[in-house]
């Protein structure tokens, strides 16, 4: 949803605000905004103190604008929209400095996102207590889409709107179901599990940084009641996901760990292009539990240092032979692993996946397939 433009009268939207600032009478305001922005270069970036500075500035500007001749006799909503415009303008300018800029935040973002990528493999609505009547993947998709839009915007208000829209989609689903089934109305017992499930499905980019940014930089007087409640729900989903374990999904801890491990495996195998650099490493080095395993220079792996373009017809024959051996070994290894710990369907699926990804013909020309071949070797290392 276009958060800024839809159905807003011209004098109330962001461009209306910018236009007003271009008038000669607004020179003092423009000056204040400019010197405010410049003042940031005097301080090292720090989320909390940056937030305090922005919040104070917006409050001061609100008082100034209320008394400003350009807004003389303006109704409250016009003043309000000017401050909203100012928030958007200032935060767009300060975005690089204030959004996800600390290394801890960036680290948390990656951790959460990677965890969600694993959870996506096995977390089902039942694990979270979503009642069967409400299990409606099609409707949830709309909520998922809203949440995924969050990085399309820089202004805190617009990011918050993505969250609100997501929650609103869930609310509408809950209301519709309680009307059509005439059952007890839904509350947080139903809402939160669905929101967590939607968050897992969406894996919104930079979840932690986005929530923190909205909380710190959305105008304080706007981050109240409903808005505050729904933002809190997203924080709560983040916390649930961060601390997730077997008991939070009503499964044995061992079963949970096994599912996470299988998901890790599937992600690694299923995504060979995520490690395309591997074939270029010279000499190729793989690490397992921190130990380096040198593969180059050995007669055992004659192709590790070769480029796809340089292969001859004979090489391809040999490569195909090696590939077949590898697949056979891999399949046996998978069998053995399966008997020990891992999920059967997943491995069969994975093995099938591998065969499909590395077609025996045209290995030479297809660099992607060559990478898959390398990756299938790499897949073994994760055990």
């Amino acid at each position, binding site marked *: 949803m276009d958060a800024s433009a839809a159905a807003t009268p011209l004098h109330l939207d962001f461009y209306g605000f910018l236009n007003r600032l271009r008038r000669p009478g607004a020179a003092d305001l423009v000056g204040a905004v400019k010197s405010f922005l410049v003042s940031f270069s005097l301080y090292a970036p720090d989320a909390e103190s940056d937030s305090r500075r922005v919040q104070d500035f917006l409050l001061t500007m609100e008082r100034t604008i209320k008394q400003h001749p350009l807004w003389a006799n303006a109704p*409250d909503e016009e003043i309000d929209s000017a401050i909203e415009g100012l928030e958007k303008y200032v935060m767009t300018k300060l975005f690089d400095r204030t959004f996800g800029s600390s290394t801890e935040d960036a680290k948390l973002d990656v951790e959460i996102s990677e965890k969600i990528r694993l959870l996506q493999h096995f977390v089902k609505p039942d694990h979270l207590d979503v009642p069967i009547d409400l299990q409606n993947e099609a409707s949830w998709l709309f909520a998922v889409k809203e949440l995924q839009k969050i990085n399309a915007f820089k202004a805190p208000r617009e990011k918050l709107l993505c969250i609100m829209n997501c*929650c*609103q989609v*869930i609310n*509408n689903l809950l209301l519709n179901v309680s009307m059509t089934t005439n059952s*007890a*109305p839904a509350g947080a017992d139903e809402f939160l599990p669905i929101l967590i499930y939607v968050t897992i499905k969406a894996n919104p980019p930079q979840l932690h940084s986005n929530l923190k940014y909205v909380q710190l930089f959305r105008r304080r007087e706007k981050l109240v009641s409903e808005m505050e409640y*729904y933002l*809190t729900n997203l924080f709560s989903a983040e916390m649930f996901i961060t601390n997730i374990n077997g008991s939070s999904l009503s499964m044995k801890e061992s079963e949970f760990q096994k599912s996470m491990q299988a998901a890790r495996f599937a992600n690694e195998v299923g995504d060979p292009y995520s490690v395309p650099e591997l074939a270029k490493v010279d000499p190729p080095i793989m690490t397992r539990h921190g130990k380096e395993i040198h593969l180059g220079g050995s007669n055992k792996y004659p192709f590790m240092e070769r480029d796809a373009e340089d292969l001859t017809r004979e090489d391809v024959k040999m490569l195909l032979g090696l590939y077949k051996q590898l697949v056979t070994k891999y399949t046996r290894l998978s069998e053995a692993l399966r008997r020990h710990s891992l999920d059967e369907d997943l491995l069969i699926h994975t093995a099938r996946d591998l065969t499909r990804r590395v077609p025996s013909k045209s290995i030479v020309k297809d660099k992607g397939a060559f990478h898959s071949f390398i990756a299938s070797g790499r897949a073994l290392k994760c055990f």
Partner: protein
Amino acid sequence: MGCSSSLPAKNAGPLSSLGNESSTVTDSKNLRVKLVLLGDSGVGKSCIVLRFVRGQFDPSSKVTVGASFLSQTLALQDSTTVKFEIWDTAGQERYAALAPLYYRGAAVAVVVYDITSPESFSKAQYWVKELQKHGSPDIVMALVGNKADLHENRSVSAQDALEYAEKNGMFFIETSAKTADNINQLFEEIAKRLPRTPSSS
């Protein structure tokens, strides 16, 4: 179920609340309070608030009905108003650790149990202890025994609950969201107990 009447949320678009906030200024005559609902899943937390929110007939009051966030303004006899912003929480055990995010800064906590379920009463006591440890020190707490209409299946005596509530400085009431019994009384009593000095929430 007894409280199954449903209305779609009128103010569904988040944009519609833009600009309304200035009308909810907290002063000594018009309070805005954050109320958090705690209790096991299935005790009827959301039924209680829906009864309350829909039972108010003041056409001028702004009502927000979502699934888990509701707000309603209660006009009192002394011509003051209290706008309750009601934060529902998920009652399932797996979500218990998230509750502090919700009750932080709440002026009122309503802890609900089901009079036919002793487990839900133990859970209520757990929440009371949590709030005493981690909630705001001046939080107003109410203990609510819901489903009072099912008295033939009662397994938590009103006497026990009352004693527990008094010992913990709480207000106690039994309600039925189904028959609407005591629902308004609950919120009126809470309103009376709120500190009247303007708070800086």
